[in-house]
């Protein structure tokens, strides 16, 4: 694999579109739970806001100060979690982390297929945290914690 290829693989069109996608960004006026994820080493910060529908997530939005991977991950999260329970969302986050860490991304379901844009991250070990930060914040929000960290 050429190294330019590498970089282009990481910053795929899909990822960059997700990173910029305004659809899931911004602090909503009302929400049921929120938490902040901080990566003290690099300064990345993600605020996740969730509205609930019984025990299911109705909507998720984020305000992210972070790199493109971090932003893309937060957007994908906001896209994927509506309709899921806390446990299901947590499992999805775990899966996102595994994919980023190991590169294993040959899942067949649709959502998991979406997550596979992070498979290439395993070739950039210091960037795995950029994928998981938003998911950690979601976990924290859903369990009532106010802050979390990806360190």
């Amino acid at each position, binding site marked *: 694999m050429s190294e330019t290829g590498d970089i282009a693989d990481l910053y795929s069109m899909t990822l960059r579109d997700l990173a910029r996608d305004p659809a899931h960004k911004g602090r909503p006026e009302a929400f049921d739970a929120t938490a902040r994820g*901080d990566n*003290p*080493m*690099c300064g990345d910060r993600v605020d996740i806001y969730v509205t609930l529908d019984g025990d299911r997530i109705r909507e998720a939005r984020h305000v992210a100060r972070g790199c493109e991977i971090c932003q893309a991950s937060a957007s994908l999260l906001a896209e994927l979690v509506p309709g899921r329970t806390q446990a299901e969302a947590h499992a999805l986050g775990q899966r996102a982390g595994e994919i980023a860490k190991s590169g294993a991304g040959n899942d067949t379901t649709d959502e998991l297929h979406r997550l596979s844009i992070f498979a290439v991250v395993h070739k*950039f*070990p*210091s*960037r795995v945290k950029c994928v998981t930060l938003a998911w950690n914040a979601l976990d924290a929000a859903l369990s009532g914690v106010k*802050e979390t*960290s990806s*360190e």
Partner: protein
Amino acid sequence: MDTIISPLFDVTRIRQDFPILSTKVHGKPLTFLDSGASAQKPRAVIEAMTRSMETAYANVHRGAYHLSEAATESYEAARIATQRFLGATEPEEIVFTSNSTAAINFVAHSYGRGVLQPGQFVLTSEMEHHANMVPWQMLRDANIGIGLRYVRVTERGELDLEDLAAKLADGKVGLVALTHMSNVLGTVTPAAQIARMAHEAGAKVLFDGSQAAVHRHVDVTAIDADFYVFTAHKLYGPTGIGVLYGKRKLLDAMPPFLGGGDMIESVTLERTTYAAAPARFEAGTPPIIEAVGLHAAIDYVTNIGMGAIEAHERALVDHAMAVLPGVEGLTLLGGAQDRGGVFAFALDGVHPHDLSTFLDRHGIAVRAGRHCAEPLHTRFGVEGGTTRASFGLYTTPEEIDLLAAKLTEARRFFA
């Protein structure tokens, strides 16, 4: 006696792994009997450190570039290797410090001042290395209401377990801090039993494994230790790195000790929040190269097998117990049933310092003094110190024979 004690353990071949063992001292082959103070380094350790500096060095944790990723990976791999070596449940339970002394001081500060309550006591023993005594004295003397008790040591050089039980009985002991193996008497303490007694009395327990971890397989989970410390340089690894194991729950509840980079979560001028363990306890640039060396040392002893090392050293201890008491005028300190390869002794009419110099001129390295265990020497009435021979995995029975012969010669010389 043949140098190959066990078919599993070819000491002649093992000695070739240690470059220093083929050097000469005062024209004599080196007979290194001071591994208890610090062990020699196998080529695998030296080469791992060299390789890290030549091919994969950068500061860890904070770099999004190849060398930093590689260094971080090696550093964290050393943590995992240490976790496995000690039988800990999670890598996060392993904190790298600069040596055993620093590790015990960490606990004395973070747990002692941060978690223990006024009116509680720390229980240590007369048998400790100063590293496991002075920090507790400093805690006692900090005037925050924490007391200090000592477990007595029997004539045989074992912990007096009845005294231990008695001193735990009132439930006021918050932390038991005892050695897992004495660096003077060689006594191995019954760690699992001590932990059970401590826990029944509502106390946590720390073991100073500086000696024990070198000589036997240690499993902190099986022992049920709350804290366990050791130091790489005695385990054939480099100086500059030690290990603090702490149960996750305990580490999570402890305030940090040293402040600086890498241990924070966020810093403003007014307020700082701290990272989770182990980062919270690893302020500043950690011993990166040394962690690689420790990892190589762990791999080295694990490949030989801690069981095989223990068997080899047991055979050496048996041999020493057969040979040393035959030296006229020699008195061994202690005589525990369960003991490792450390022998402190007095030789009638010969001062330890003079003896050590005499032996040195025959290539034999032993230590003279009180071995950082002054109260223990006072306990045994040898305030002036003793001479100590201690074994490593490269020690041979012939070296013990040579020691015995030269002891006899020394006695004649100084008569």
